[in-house]
């Protein structure tokens, strides 16, 4: 309102113009704190990150001046990098896909009325509420060869000899990484399920009634009515999961420390390992990670047309 009345008097001499500029800045008083927060919590770290990635650091963090793209050159020559990137791709795709698919089922189940539903819903929170690090450590113990809980069960079922090399799940990169993905899925399911449950509750009963009247089968109703209406909830769940899973650190670190060698490390874990050897190179990798996650999220949003209103 003020702005408009000021604008009406644009032709006036200097003092008035100065005032109009000032009042044009007035909204800043309201959005200023938000801008300051973003500048401080988002932009400043990004600037710092770019700076660190082009700086030569001693192993103990003494700044030895700028070194241009040396850190990046060194990083891309790292012979384990391609394996790490590949593994990160598998990690994100497998964990997020499995999480979403399983969560759809879990949410459907928990959306039904059955005795003890409240307790069951509370129980579903447990893997989410527990510290991821503790969950990872507990799984590590359960997978311990010889007397780990999971190995004892598998042994008693006659599937795996608990003293065999197979039972040393975390000792080989293949099976170790598989179990780490399983744990990642396990801890991601509660959040995703709750998002989907919330989505399911927004689906109005009338559309199901209409589908029933039209004689649609159960499967048809699910795929043509429920899923499309769940899209907003699924989108949120997927995007948040992609970012979380991509940046996930404690599971892999606690279970195998990225080893043997770097054979179970994803980019986040590898970044941490590099930090002990070369801070600049580690910062360069964190820039690569940052770029990757932005590209992945934008590509995903683009493909899923997140801002289109119509659900055609």
């Amino acid at each position, binding site marked *: 309102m003020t702005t408009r009345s000021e604008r009406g008097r644009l032709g006036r001499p200097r003092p008035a113009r100065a005032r109009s500029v*000032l009042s044009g800045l007035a909204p800043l008083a309201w959005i200023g704190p938000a801008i300051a927060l973003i500048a*401080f919590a988002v932009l400043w770290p990004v600037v710092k990150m770019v700076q660190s990635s082009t700086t030569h650091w001693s192993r103990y*963090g003494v700044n030895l001046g700028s070194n241009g793209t040396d850190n990046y050159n060194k990083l891309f020559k790292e*012979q384990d990098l391609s394996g790490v990137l590949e593994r990160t791709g598998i990690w994100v795709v497998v964990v997020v896909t499995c999480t979403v698919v399983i969560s759809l089922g879990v949410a459907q189940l928990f959306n039904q009325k059955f005795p003890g539903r409240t307790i069951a819903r509370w129980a579903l929170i447990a893997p989410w509420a527990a510290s991821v690090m503790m969950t990872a450590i507990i799984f590590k113990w359960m997978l311990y060869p010889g007397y780990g809980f999971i190995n004892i069960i598998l042994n008693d079922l006659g599937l795996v000899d608990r003293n065999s*090399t197979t039972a040393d799940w975390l000792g080989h990169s293949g099976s170790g990484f598989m179990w780490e993905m399983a744990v990642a899925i396990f801890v991601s399911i509660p959040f995703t399920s709750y998002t989907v449950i919330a989505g399911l509750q927004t689906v109005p009963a009338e559309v199901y009634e209409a589908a029933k009247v039209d004689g649609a089968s159960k499967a048809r109703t699910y795929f043509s009515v429920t899923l499309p209406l769940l899209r907003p909830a699924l989108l949120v769940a997927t995007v948040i999961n992609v970012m979380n899973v991509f940046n996930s650190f404690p599971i892999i670190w606690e279970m195998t420390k990225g080893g043997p060698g770097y054979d179970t490390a994803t980019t986040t874990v590898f970044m941490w390992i590099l930090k*002990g050897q070369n801070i600049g190179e580690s910062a360069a990798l964190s820039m690569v990670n940052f770029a990757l996650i932005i590209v992945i999220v934008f590509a995903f949003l683009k493909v899923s047309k997140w801002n289109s209103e119509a659900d055609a």
Partner: protein
Amino acid sequence: MKRLATLAATGLAASLVLSACSSSKSSGGSSSSDSSKPVTITLLAPNYGSGTADDSKNYWGDIITAFEAKYPNVKVQLQEATWDNLATKLTTALQNNDAPDLFEGGGYADVAAQGLLYKASDIVSPQTLSNLIPHVAQLGQTKGQDGQQAQYGIPFTTSTRAFFYNTQLFQQAGITTAPQTWADIATDAAKIKALGKTGFGLPLGSEEAQAETYLWTLGNGGGYKDASGKWDINSPQNIETFQWLTNNLVKPGLTEPDPGTKDRTDLWKDFAAGNIGMINGSPALLPILKEGTIGSNFKSSPIPGKTGTLSTPLGVADFIEAFNSHPDHKTAIGEFLDFALQKQYQEKFDNLYDLLPATQDAAADLSASNPALKPFIDALPTAAWYPSSDPNWDPASQKVKDIVGKAVTSDPKGVLDQIQAVATASN
């Protein structure tokens, strides 16, 4: 006018927030060596113990209590770490500009070269310095930032390595003599495996892979450096060593599964439980054996090499280093070190953990009072040591811990090449 005021206030608030955050690192730089002013010094040290009773924080706690009684103005704060994260903890602390005043347990050359350490002669008394075992003290000398050779690492404890075997399993398997060569190890390990136990414990996981690697490569005339002092990690002898291990111990299943991911302490405990036939150990294994079910059914002997036992045992020295980030702590640090390196505390440590002293008076005393340690003490001067006075040893040994386990599952040359590259990189 009101708007202007709000605007100004917001701007001010924002700049305050920013400046508050940017000025958080500027403390602790002022210098004053007024010894009457109370100071708190920090000590970061590993736990040498294996249980609650022999936790090293009790050992340090006793020293600190006695020290604080004598020097009421100085408080000593102990931070304890496990061996597998000690190096990471120090690196992180240094990167965050939060160095401890004293660090015990790791390498020193790398930080000394960066000018982060006090020279020993600047902080401890000449008596303390001259009391160090000369051969061991020499290992603590390296070039500082000024390019001058000086004592930066103050040896705190030493140990030598030996080969341990389970006599009961040997008897059951019909083995009568301790193995002398690698081939003997393979033969004996196969016999023990037939009993359903693990033949040889090979800890190539991150905890102390650099020791196991050194012991095996020494056995083939290899090691970390060649005779002229150049890094030689990917030498033909070393590659051959890992090929031998892969083909004769790991592939036939004579070791524990996946040796590349198994840590020393876990295997020592397994050996103490009677599940492993042979393993390389240090005196620090003895307390673990006392707790295990193995009883007295074990013996130690010289470490087998490819063609015969090692003529030089591997010696390991753990150093104390003093960081110069708090000039006002300098006097207190020196006082504490002089106090902690007294004979009585050295001996107490060695009797507690069966490790060896770093000071001459304690060595002389212990040779007489603890005959079990005497042969180890006598062997100290002839031991082979890590190249710890080379600034690249710290990054190189970290790389060994990270990846050497893969040398027994994939191409050893590729793995050793990578380690050699880190060791020879200019930092």
